[in-house]
């Protein structure tokens, strides 16, 4: 069964640095999403992306964040000037149509020191 893959599985970064989290969505999917989950808290929507544009974004997704689909397979989340509170699991998801179930990757654990 096709899977969403995320790399790296764990990223440790100094506060103030930039990080790029990478995702390879399922190949025939058109809609892409990023979520985050702070330890012990609920999964929070960050952004959805379709046709090379952001479709929706939450209040969390401010100017510190950006997304990009640099080629036909990767979908990235860039976090600039990282803060301690950015430490969390970041999940990528994809689906073929908005009403279809989303397929999630196993996440990147981001630790900001």
């Amino acid at each position, binding site marked *: 069964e096709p899977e*969403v893959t995320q790399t790296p599985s764990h990223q440790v970064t100094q506060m103030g640095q930039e990080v790029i989290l990478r995702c390879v969505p399922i190949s025939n999917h058109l809609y892409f999403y990023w979520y985050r989950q702070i330890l012990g808290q*609920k*999964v929070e929507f960050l952004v959805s992306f379709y046709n090379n544009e952001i479709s*929706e974004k939450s209040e969390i997704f401010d100017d510190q964040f950006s997304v990009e689909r640099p080629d036909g397979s990767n979908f990235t989340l860039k976090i600039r000037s990282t803060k301690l509170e950015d430490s969390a699991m970041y999940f990528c998801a994809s689906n073929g149509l908005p*009403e279809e*179930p*989303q397929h*999630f990757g*196993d996440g990147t654990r981001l630790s900001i020191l």
Partner: protein
Amino acid sequence: LAKTTQPISMDSYEGQEVNITCSHNNIATNDYITWYQQFPSQGPRFIIQGYKTKVTNEVASLFIPADRKSSTLSLPRVSLSDTAVYYCLVGAGTGGSYIPTFGRGTSLIVHP
């Protein structure tokens, strides 16, 4: 946005049937109901999705009453490996914007 309400936690024993009910009083006409399962340090995993009446797959059943203001996820004969957090999501009807909203979910603990 349709808000969902689920029990915070449930306990069960191996071999029992577990039913988790989710309330979504302001569900919109085009909204689907989707359930996910999440294990620690893993991404949510799709279990089942429905629009109305009953849906069954190889792992679960989803019961949706006529008014669609609630739904019940039924897990037959649970095992220890079903210990996880279960989330109910409502939305993603075509033609409208959709911001997936996860609640706190229901933490299911299956005991031997």
